[in-house]
């Protein structure tokens, strides 16, 4: 798919970002150039015999036990809106009619 205004707006919406109108043209131009460049990977042929997952062989899962404990106050330290011991957000469930 070619990179155009419609695509960039769709992606910005998926990303929960708003691109200002006066930034949009330059954003589309830069985005297009970058996507054209990364299309270089079209020439990489996928060899199913190559195991791409073995990067993880050096790591292991730890026991499911607590390694760091934050108090309620610490968790809420940077919250912009809080009530009692909770984060406060705009209501997301509509009232029943």
């Amino acid at each position, binding site marked *: 798919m070619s990179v155009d205004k419609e*695509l960039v707006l769709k*992606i910005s919406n998926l990303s929960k*970002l708003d*691109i200002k109108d006066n*930034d949009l043209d330059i954003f589309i131009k830069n985005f297009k150039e970058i996507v054209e460049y990364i299309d270089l990977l*079209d020439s990489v042929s996928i060899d199913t015999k190559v195991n791409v997952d073995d*990067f993880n062989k050096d790591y292991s899962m730890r026991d499911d036990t607590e390694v760091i404990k934050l108090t309620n106050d610490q968790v809420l330290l*940077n919250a912009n809106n809080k009530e009692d011991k909770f984060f406060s957000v705009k209501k997301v469930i509509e009232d029943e009619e």
Partner: protein
Amino acid sequence: MFKTIEEIHLGYLNKDFCPSEVVKEYLKDIDKNEAKINSFVEIFREDLKDNAKKLDDQLGSDKLKKSLLFGIPLSLKDIFLVKNYKCSCGSKMLKDYISNYDSTVYERLNVQSSLIIGKNNMDEFAMGSSTETSFFGPTFNPWDLSRVPGGSSGGSAASVSAGTSCFSVGTDTGGSIRQPASFCGVVGLKPSYGRVSRFGMIAFSSSLDQAGPITQNVKDSAIVLDSISGFDPKDSTSINLPPTTIYESLVNDKYSLKDFKIGVPYDLLETGLDDEIRTNFENLIKNLENLGCKIIDIKIPNAKFSVATYYIIAPCEASSNLSRFDGIRYGYSDKNLDPKDLEEVYINNRSKGFGNEVKRRIMLGTYALSSGYYDAYYLKAVHAKKLITNDFNIAFNDVDCVISPTCPELPFKVGEKVNDPLKMYLSDILTIPANLAQLPSISIPISLSKNNLPLGLQLTSQKLDEEKLLKIAYSIEKEVGFNSHPSIL
């Protein structure tokens, strides 16, 4: 103040000076230079003086004998959490964020009684190669204030270069330690992926991010790596190995350049290199050969895919990692907004909290991972990453390390590339392969250009072989004898 870790340590042992006097010198240099270079986002001035004073009476203690970092003033890239201090990651999104726990890197430095001066400026969320994307304004290169210090750990490299911190710890996702180290004439080490814990380090691209030291020389780099490396159960990608002990072997083992075979990927260097960088590199190769070093032409055929691979994997991971920033639990929140729903809160906070480069990369990642594109982009990129790793593994059958210039170009002018992201991305072409292949890689300064700008040499070795890497780097460092500091400050 241009004293290495070793020199300050020796001064303490000999009681030539005490931590308060050393700190006073650093603060004096900060007062003199910082306004010109903008390498810090915060300086912990009063806490630093208090902490140094507490160490003054301990110069006769075992603590000093046991730790080379006792009383050493350092700075941290503002991506590492230090409890009760701000951590902004160069972003408006986190400009008021207060850390509520310590990063493992800081915890390990702190336990050795080192002294934190403050937090270094950086590209926003470590996305950039020039430290120009920082919300707190650009950092300037101490060698030429009209030029960038590189990035994203540009504040770290500039402060070490300007003598306003003895060393710094930065992070490297595609060259963000080595490129600024090269631009600022200091030593920057990216350890193997998994060598240093990422716990408490704000994530950009989790499979590539790695913390490492920016220092004045290779020995200091070994000292810092020995202090911050080692298994950490709080990071699931931390490799289960004890801390390195490279400083001792660097200093005590018997070795010379004749013991090492060095690979040069000539095909990768055929185009795009600045003439002066090329000439300088070729001269260095001749000198190494004259010193008895075996130079071997090697091939990394898939390295041509590195930048494209990186700019799929890193943004994909960034788009996921940065989805946590909604301005609710933490982060920028627009107090004047009267939102109609929660989605408007997200969009508003994220759009006003992130800068353009961060937005671009989040969107690039969202695009590459979106329905119908995953196979074309992410799957291909992961495959290319593996092919590049295999190329290096084959090369390491014949050589001990791979060398090249760290960067294809000299430090560029402030503003020169900021509006041309692709051009900026391509400046990381020589550093990215080591991140993709998870290899340790170091940049050391080797000389100055005609215009008095530093030139860096990059060395890369096999995964987890930092010891051999630093031995070769140390041997070359001794031969080239680079010992210059910026004269304009």
